[in-house]
């Protein structure tokens, strides 16, 4: 039986992990290779690296990180953050990434995503979606300037039945696109997986948005990774059982030792879920 995946996410800035593991005795807690190896030993099923490098001249640092990690760590590696086009995807795959996620660039022009999926295969293209609940309290920033012929201004636009909206640029900019329709549309454009982040829950450690997870999981047939809101192992069980997620992603609760991957996996297995325990 296919097991449910537990995936730690590492933020990388200019080749260094930020907000890295702070509770174990690593020689260098900012070294991506050391952290990746640590999570691999703990039983992580995959790793996600999110490149948050802002300066243009340091953009290639992520390529070196991917090369070094893939020489040492033999589990799947997804890389995202600032991926603009098929050329960026190619360079990351050649460096050793197994999957590449695209977010803002895919929203601004879905053809860019499709071009990469056609060239490299759906299995390595992940659509990362940052979604927020529609309603009072949603940010009111100026929306992203979508071209007139963009499907987000037509069939994918938020309507009276919409519950979640797609945001871009780190979750700050609304798009007017319905998140559930967007997920289904991007599957048609060649997405092999959906990395779904609730911007409402992200950082709150109060549980995932399982209404969102379930709505997207039911709208697509590709796997869905739930992200945003993990505070403990029970939240992860809920995302799988109630949210129908195929995988759960978390960052800070692993990094700060609030819970370990081993502990989460033992809990999920005791809950009756198919789970792979550590590699040893």
């Amino acid at each position, binding site marked *: 039986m296919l097991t449910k995946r537990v995936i730690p996410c590492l933020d990388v800035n200019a080749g260094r992990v930020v907000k890295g593991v702070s509770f174990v005795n690593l020689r260098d807690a900012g070294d991506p290779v050391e952290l990746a190896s640590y999570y691999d030993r703990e039983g992580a099923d995959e790793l996600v690296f999110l490149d948050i490098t802002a300066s243009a001249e340091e953009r290639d640092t992520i390529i070196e990180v991917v090369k070094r990690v893939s020489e040492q760590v*033999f589990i799947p590696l997804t890389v995202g953050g600032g991926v603009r086009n098929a050329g960026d995807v190619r360079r990351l795959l050649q460096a050793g990434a197994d999957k590449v996620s695209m977010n803002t660039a895919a929203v601004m022009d879905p053809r860019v995503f499709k071009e990469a999926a056609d060239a490299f295969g759906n299995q390595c293209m992940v659509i990362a979606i940052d979604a927020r609940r529609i309603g009072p309290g949603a940010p009111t920033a100026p929306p992203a300037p979508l071209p007139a012929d963009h499907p987000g201004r037509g069939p994918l636009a938020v309507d009276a039945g919409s519950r979640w909206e797609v945001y871009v640029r780190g979750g700050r900019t609304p798009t007017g696109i319905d998140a559930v329709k967007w997920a289904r549309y991007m599957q048609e454009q060649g997405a092999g997986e959906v990395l779904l982040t609730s911007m409402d829950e992200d950082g709150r450690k109060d549980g995932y948005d399982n209404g969102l997870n379930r709505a997207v999981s039911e709208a697509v047939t590709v796997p869905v990774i739930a992200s945003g809101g993990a505070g403990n192992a029970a939240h992860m069980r809920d995302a799988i059982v109630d949210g129908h997620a195929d995988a759960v992603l978390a960052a800070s609760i692993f990094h700060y030792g609030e819970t370990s991957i081993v502990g989460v996996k033992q809990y999920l297995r005791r809950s009756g879920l198919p789970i792979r325990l550590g590699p040893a």
Partner: protein
Amino acid sequence: MPAMEPIVIVDYGAGNLRSVQKAFEHLGHAAAIADDPDTVAKAPAIVFPGQGACPPAMATLNRHGMADALRQAVRSGTPFFGVCLGLQLLFDWSEEGDMPGLGIIPGRVVRLPRGPRVPHMGWNEVRLARSHPVFEGVPDESLFYFVHSYHAVPSRPESVVATTDHGIAFCSVAARDNVIATQFHPEKSGPLGLRLYDNFVRCVVSSPRGGTRVSH
């Protein structure tokens, strides 16, 4: 273990060859990436990885004379390890693009059934149908990492080394003579995956080319 010429990893523009190469190097075995038929013809052992779609891959293999070189190498007894798309391309025909494959193992390749999520992505159990030297020391029902939307249906039951469940029980490891192929990615399956590559190299060393074949 005696020194040997580098294992040849076939490059036909499909997927993550670097990870495969690094896996062999991590184990202390030299591995070279090659995209020309001459190197394939002289290889002491061949690894045939791949990801993505059958049609462009097959087109590339045919265009560069690589398809013939691979068939010839298999016929001459060169130990051969196919991975993922490299398993699917070994069969006679694929539903993906409705096109012929290399015809090295009898059977065809079809899409995974609707119902469970496709691509089949993640760690799943590999249930051994019979023993094979490449799986020496690997417990039955071990977990390996899969990413695929199509699966092989061998014509002959003896080609099936292991099966995995995802909607149906499909052939996740196929073999014939000096050929073994896995639908999953050993280079992404942690220590057990690396064990398969290590076992493969041991088979190569203990079975000189043209001598005893890897398996039967």
